[in-house]
């Protein structure tokens, strides 16, 4: 991620100050950057794909445990977190939109809102983790949650913690990237003619949202 952002900061060519010497023009450069980002996102999807595979595997083996444990997750919290991430995705596209129409102030504001919601999500999820820790609903051998004793319940929590944990790690990285982007936008690095890093950061943030869109019903609702 940071690589991509960085890779496009320094250029030296007569056409556009941001054009790197080995690209024909800005269009090709943006196309390359975006394609690279999409490929990176594909690897992220497959990284989570492994966990989705584990999820479906153990769900097939322990359907009862899945039913019971999923009821014990905090559904309203999950709903709140979903709204949080959807809204942050929305503010992210608005930030790019405002950069493109030349309103830097609003853009910075939107980026800050996005980052805040990102870290807010982490806070909400941290509270959930804390609650589960108190209950003893922990993965594998640490499991001592009295209320659910179905076969495979520890496995549900293992899958739950691994999936949400990996996702939260992504939210954290995304949040840090957003803060850097906010700083650079405020400095005036991006405008209507050059917003590639913002664009790529946005793609990454939407991916984080996209994965949560699937995690929420899989873990909390069904």
């Amino acid at each position: 991620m940071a690589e991509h952002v960085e890779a496009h900061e320094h250029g030296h060519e007569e056409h556009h100050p941001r054009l790197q010497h080995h690209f024909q023009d800005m269009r090709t450069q943006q196309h390359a950057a975006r394609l690279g980002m999409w490929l990176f996102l594909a690897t992220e999807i497959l990284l989570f794909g492994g966990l989705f595979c584990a999820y479906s595997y153990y769900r097939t083996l322990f359907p009862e445990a899945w039913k019971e444990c999923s009821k014990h997750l905090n559904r309203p919290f999950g709903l709140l977190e979903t709204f949080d991430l959807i809204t942050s995705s929305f503010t992210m596209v608005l930030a790019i939109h405002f950069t493109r129409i030349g309103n830097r102030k609003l853009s910075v504001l939107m980026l800050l809102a996005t980052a805040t919601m990102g870290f807010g999500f982490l806070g909400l999820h941290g509270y959930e983790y804390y609650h589960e820790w108190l209950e003893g609903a922990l993965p594998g051998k640490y499991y001592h949650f009295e209320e659910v004793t179905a076969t495979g319940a520890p496995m549900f929590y293992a899958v739950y913690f691994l999936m949400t944990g990996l996702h939260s790690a992504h939210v954290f990285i995304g949040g840090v990237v957003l803060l850097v982007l906010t700083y650079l936008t405020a400095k005036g690095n991006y405008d209507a003619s050059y917003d590639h890093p913002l664009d790529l950061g946005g793609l990454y943030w939407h991916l984080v949202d996209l994965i949560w869109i699937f995690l929420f019903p899989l873990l909390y609702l069904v």
Partner: protein
Amino acid sequence: MSSPSPSPTTTPAVPVEPKNYLNCETGVRSWLLTRDHKRIGLMFLACVTAALFLGGLFAMLIRIELLTPDETIMSAQTYNRMFTLHGVVMIFLFMIPAIPSGFGNFVLPMMIGAEDVAFPRLNLASWYIYLAGAAFALWGMVHGGADTGWTFYTPYSTTTFTKVVPILLGAFIIGFSSIATGINFIVTVHTMRGPGLTWNKLPLFVWSIYATSIIQVLATPILGITVLLTAIEHAFGFGIFDPAHGGDPVLFQHMFWFYSHPAVYIMVLPAMAVMSEIVPTFARKNIFGYKAIAYSSVGIALVGFFAWGHHLFTSGQSTFNAGVFGVISMIVGVFTAIKVFNWVGTLYKGRIRFSTPFAYFCGFIYLLVFGGMTGVALATVSLDVHWQDTYFVIAHFHFIMVGATLMAFLAALHYWFPKMFGRTYSEGWGLVAASLIILGFNATFIPQFLLGNAGMPRRYWSYPAEFQALNVASTAGASLLAFGFLTILVYLTIALFYGEKVGRNPWGSRGYEWNSPSPPPKHNFDSPQVFDHPPHDYDSEGHEPEMQTEVHGGTEVHGDDGAKR
């Protein structure tokens, strides 16, 4: 130029020491912070060569231990670590990055007329990530190693007390290097092709590396999550793969082989890439069935993903799944067969020139045919039941992966050596080493096929006495192989400093990369490239393939070149 060249590249200026990518900047800093794909390629080559010798050392120790049925030089525990480290080093540190990250980095941008890859910084980062991963893995090896086999099957890998976690994390980190290189090449091929270079004009090397990159990008993340989960499991006991906590080891096998089967093609496709360049050059003829070879590369890349289940035939898989995975494995075999026929077809009515790279091609085609056919035999489900996890499998995958990949690595090294350094090596020694290696390889692994037939399981430190004769034969072959490698190391090192200087295109190849001087300048070409002829084009009217410094075979020199000017 005595014959009209299609691409006006050479400039008549004769500097005493022309500036090239090697001498344009000097100092350690200029290498460590370089963004030049050629230098990064060379740095990768240096690292993978070191890994090759490290892995080879482990292999020799294994073979020496197996000289006698019981303890020869090491205990069972040490032996288990040896074969694990041999596998880990050879696969993750040598074979996966060797040709794509090393030679691919060097020649791919030149083949498409680009100044550099799309993301030069990412490219350098890929090298550093590789180093970091290697450092992690080596740290783990020094502090206890692992004794699980490179497949890390759970629950053994999650309960053993050896240093599995750092080695798994090393593999995880190296995976990112692989992904970074893959992304870089895909984007480069999509966006940086020179004017007039359409998809159907891409050299076959580019096609194969492109297919390899697809696999790297799509498969490596799954390995990443798998080894990460295994490391978490080993460290914290979440139970995700461990039946003692409710998990199922079969899931691990599925996730592991979903990466590791396509990984075989990450190793073999680049080998095919190199050979598709070498065959037309030395047969002096356009490649037979360009489209078949190009598209079958991508076909292998995609269909190869469907076949992973054949590693689980004996794990209690149902007949239904065995059927599905078996048929798909056979289809992958057909793609490879197409390529073999096309290469051999290229020789037909050619003007074949025998030289070191071509010698390796001969070794390659033989090993690929034999390794491929035994692969098909292994995909035949009922036969696999007998061979699974025996030395037959070992011999098979060494034939196909090492035999083919190593042959291609050495062929590529000898083929592009003049381009990389502007010097050449002693052809006589090249042929001697090639024969040593090909002979040694067969002597090592043909006995192992027979051992597998006889039923000797893999990863055995001690074995029943009746297997000894074949094991001794195998060890003898391995020493021949080791001797061959040392020979190459010596004469190539000498050639690096004292080798005869050569011109732009010593092989008279029609590959686009040979249009650049040897060694190439920093931005690859002295003038922009125009791609007005198809790749591997040896027969268009008026396109007489120019023969430059003819250093091999004692024949006369035709055409002019940098060295003679």
